[in-house]
């Protein structure tokens, strides 16, 4: 209990520090001024979300291979947390887009693929509610999760393969791209903070799922007697 509270406090502190850094430490950007500061959360949340989906992908693979309930629980947990982060991206994006491009939304490859990613993981969670038998639900949703992961590299590649309204990559974007060093440090710090938050949320969600399945098993055993 203590350990959990402590971890929670540390994670909160990290996220707070990242917020502080992005507002007060990072230098002002020339064309977009204070608005650009949303970038540290926008991109970092996207990275954290995609990492969460990668965790989901690995958990799905492991479930199919080992058939142990815990991988199924990890699968749902990480899908839900990833979905939350992508939702943040889908909210911060338009907030930034309105002043930057003059519109909230446009259907370019990056934006659409991100939205499709969001829909895919909603479908993943929806599919789970549509199959009653626990084993089959776990197996079939794991398989669907494996298939839907294909959209993650596409979201990542969208701004690299197609010409988009969305800005081209500044990190890992090849020669000519890049960030000012302080910006870079702040950015990586907020990436770290949001990843910590993501891991913490997944762990908490996983505990909850585990409790739920334990209760289920107890209930079944009570019925069997």
């Amino acid at each position, binding site marked *: 209990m203590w350990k959990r509270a402590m971890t929670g406090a540390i994670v909160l502190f990290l996220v707070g520090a990242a917020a502080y850094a992005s507002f007060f430490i990072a230098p002002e950007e020339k064309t977009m001024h204070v608005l650009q500061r949303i970038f540290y959360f926008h991109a970092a949340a996207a990275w954290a979300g995609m990492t969460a989906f990668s965790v989901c992908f690995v958990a799905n693979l492991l479930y199919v291979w080992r058939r142990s309930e815990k991988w199924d629980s990890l699968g749902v947990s990480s899908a839900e947390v990833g979905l939350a982060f992508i939702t943040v991206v889908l909210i911060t994006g338009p907030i930034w887009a309105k002043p930057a491009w003059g519109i*909230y*939304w*446009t*259907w370019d490859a990056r934006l659409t693929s991100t939205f*499709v990613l969001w*829909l895919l993981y909603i*479908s993943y969670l*929806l599919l789970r509610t*549509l199959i009653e038998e626990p084993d089959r639900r776990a197996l079939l949703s794991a398989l669907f999760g494996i298939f839907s992961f294909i959209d993650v590299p596409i979201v990542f590649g969208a701004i690299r393969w197609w010409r988009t309204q969305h800005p081209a990559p500044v990190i890992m974007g090849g020669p000519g791209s890049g960030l000012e060093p302080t910006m870079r440090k702040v950015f990586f710090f907020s990436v770290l903070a949001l990843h910590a938050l993501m891991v913490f949320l997944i762990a908490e969600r996983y505990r909850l799922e585990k409790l739920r399945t334990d209760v289920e098993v107890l209930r079944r055993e009570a019925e069997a007697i």
Partner: protein
Amino acid sequence: MSLLSNTGALLGKELRTEFRSRELLTTTIVFILIVIVLFSFTFDPTSDESRRFAPGLLWLAFLFASSLMLQPCFLREQHNDTLSALRLSVSDPFAIFLAKLAANTLFLLLTELLLLPLFAVMYNVPVVPVLHWLVLVFFLASFGISIAGTSLSAISAQARMRELLLPLLMLPLLTPILVASTEVTKSLFDRAPFVQWKGIGFLAVFDVVFLTALWLFGEYLLEE
């Protein structure tokens, strides 16, 4: 009297099977979203075009979704030959249609109302001032779609190739509804909203004609 009580009992059953799991609405809404995304993405309309196309797109997506949703309406009755059981138990077979019609209309109406806020935000249109008109259009259109969908579902359930058949029969038949409700919605979403009476009248007439046809010929649709 017995028509009403039968319809009531059957409506209870329809709602129970449809809403036993509350995911039905979610699924439909996600489906409609997907259709909207696909359309927008493929055509990549300019923001001006996209505003012009919005009401049409909404109705088109909605029509697709209904043509899928209404499909199992009678198909479900074939699985254990429950349609025969109903025909054996009910005194007026029209009750079977009425119940399905009511359940479908209710369901479609609910979906539309749930989609409305989302749509309002996405295309930035003010819906509150014209809400009552919108509800009227939604009702007239959903009712028309349900009548056609329910009757055609009875036909397509008996044919082979059931999967494609309902959309195939239903979509062309409902083009008038699609066009009329798109026009009315467009006028309501206009910068200076107005009520397009012609469209509303058209929808009403369409509904009455179809309902009469169903009432007259419905019974034959159920025959073996």
